[in-house]
């Protein structure tokens, strides 16, 4: 059996007195879509930053296929096959749409130009491929950031609130792409999402965090009915 592409063991990350992530241990199953939920301030994005190497944990380790990646730099982690998107749109605004995709193909082999064109067609951005990215509408910028992630098809993709600001039809396209990559190419997805429909309809497993700790883990049904999760979202 393959070792997990991402394993977090006893990770703690503090900002001053605040424990954003507190002694957290999780394991991401290969080839599955894992959802990460929790109220605002639960430490979800901090956990992503720790996995992606943007933040170094105060305690604990992060492993990828058994290799300790805790102290690697973000670009080294990306080159190991762990890609990410950000909560806020982070495209390269003064690059054209096409350039944004091609720069993301930096680590990829194969016909990258063809792949970029396919993605632009899929997301309806083909007519704007020579425009600067900051000339796109917010919705299209979000689509571009998604397309860039798909262009950079790592083994594990950390997607931070991917569907926020995307209209329902575009959301369907994105989720179809994710399922296709997951089922046909064995990619692994770890997604933070506030839209519970997306979590419940698309995730194989869900992890719930609150105050930096894992409060529940399991199938969608198990987490949905977990008392601690209900309490975290709705109070007592």
């Amino acid at each position: 059996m393959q070792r997990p592409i991402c394993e977090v063991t006893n990770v703690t990350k503090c900002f001053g007195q605040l424990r954003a992530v507190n002694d957290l241990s999780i394991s991401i199953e290969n080839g599955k879509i894992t959802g990460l939920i929790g109220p605002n301030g639960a430490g979800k994005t901090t956990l992503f930053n720790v996995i992606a190497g943007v933040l170094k944990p105060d305690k604990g380790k992060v492993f990828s296929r058994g290799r300790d990646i805790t102290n690697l730099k973000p670009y080294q982690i990306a080159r190991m096959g762990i890609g990410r998107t950000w909560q806020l749109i982070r495209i390269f605004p003064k690059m054209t749409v096409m350039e944004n995709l091609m720069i993301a193909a930096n680590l990829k082999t194969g016909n990258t130009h063809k792949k970029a064109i396919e993605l632009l067609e899929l997301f309806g951005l083909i007519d704007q491929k020579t425009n600067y990215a900051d000339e796109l509408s917010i919705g299209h910028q979000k689509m571009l950031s998604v397309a860039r992630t798909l262009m950079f098809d790592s083994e594990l993709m950390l997607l931070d609130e991917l569907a926020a600001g995307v209209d329902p039809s575009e959301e369907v396209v994105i989720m179809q792409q994710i399922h296709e990559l997951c089922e046909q190419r064995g990619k692994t997805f770890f997604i933070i999402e506030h839209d519970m429909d997306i979590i419940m309809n698309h995730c194989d497993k869900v992890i719930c965090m609150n105050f930096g700790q894992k409060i529940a883990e399991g199938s969608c049904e198990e987490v949905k009915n977990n008392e601690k999760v209900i309490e975290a979202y709705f109070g007592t």
Partner: protein
Amino acid sequence: MKFTRKYKIKQVTSEKIGSSDKKSWPYAIALIPISFLIALPYISSPYVISVCFMLYVYTGYSVGWNIMSGLTGYVNFGYSLFIGIAAYTSVLLIIDLGVWWPIGWFLGGVSAAIVAIILGSFMLRLRGSYFAIGMLALLLGIKLLYSSKYLAPLTRGGSGFPFIEPLNLTTMYYALLFLTVLLVFISHKIITSNFGSKLIAIREDEEGAESIGINATSNKITAFALSAFFGGVISSGHIAFQNYIEPESAFNILLTIVPIVMVLLGGPGTIWGPVLGATILTFVEEFLWSYFITTYMMIYGIIMVLLVLLMPGGIIDWLKNRGTLPKTRAI
């Protein structure tokens, strides 16, 4: 693994960014003024040759500064540090050791690049205004070092020394013209390359660039060294024209500020922006200086403020936004 790596690089560089970047028409257009500039020493006065010489010097500095700061967004206020170091290296090699001047100029650039690699390894950990101020502080510190008694056996201290390199004005003119054209050509290759894309990605969003596997530190240091090398080679020619070297003029902060203004006017991060900015400002300054000797700096300042307000991204960006120029990086 080695094969895969080579394959990846080939893929990206051959398929990057779209076909418009591979057009060579800017070179064809550039051939017309270059032909004229080649003929210039035969048809004009030494004064015109001197003005054009300074045009090449400032174009070279601007192109060099643009490679680092225009592409990565790390504003280098210590550029004259490299200019000064290269100037001293080349003069000492040529005058004291009798090195052939082209080799001396080249080694001047190499010395600046080596210093850039050393400084860049820690200075490029700083960002934004911290980097800018840090470079400025280093410039002042190294200028003091070159004026001090510790380096006086080499530099002859703060008062400097006169020298004559074994080449005349026409030779210097052609050497600088050749170097400027070469640097613009190399700049074109860099900006339209995969390396150039990485530098622009770093400028746009450094964390985002790292998240797609770009090693920001090594790319920044490479750009820093190239930028210093460009400035250093040009500086070696510039100092040969002056026939006198002393720390105050070799490390003059105006040699940083003027190229910055030129790049901002023409268009940072573009190929032809620095060339355009340097051309316009060299001739405008010369004109104003000739006709408004007491007020030319004030008029010059007003023109600069207006241009920056009206065209914040520079002339090239303004023309691209108007649709006059295509939005390709090959301009």
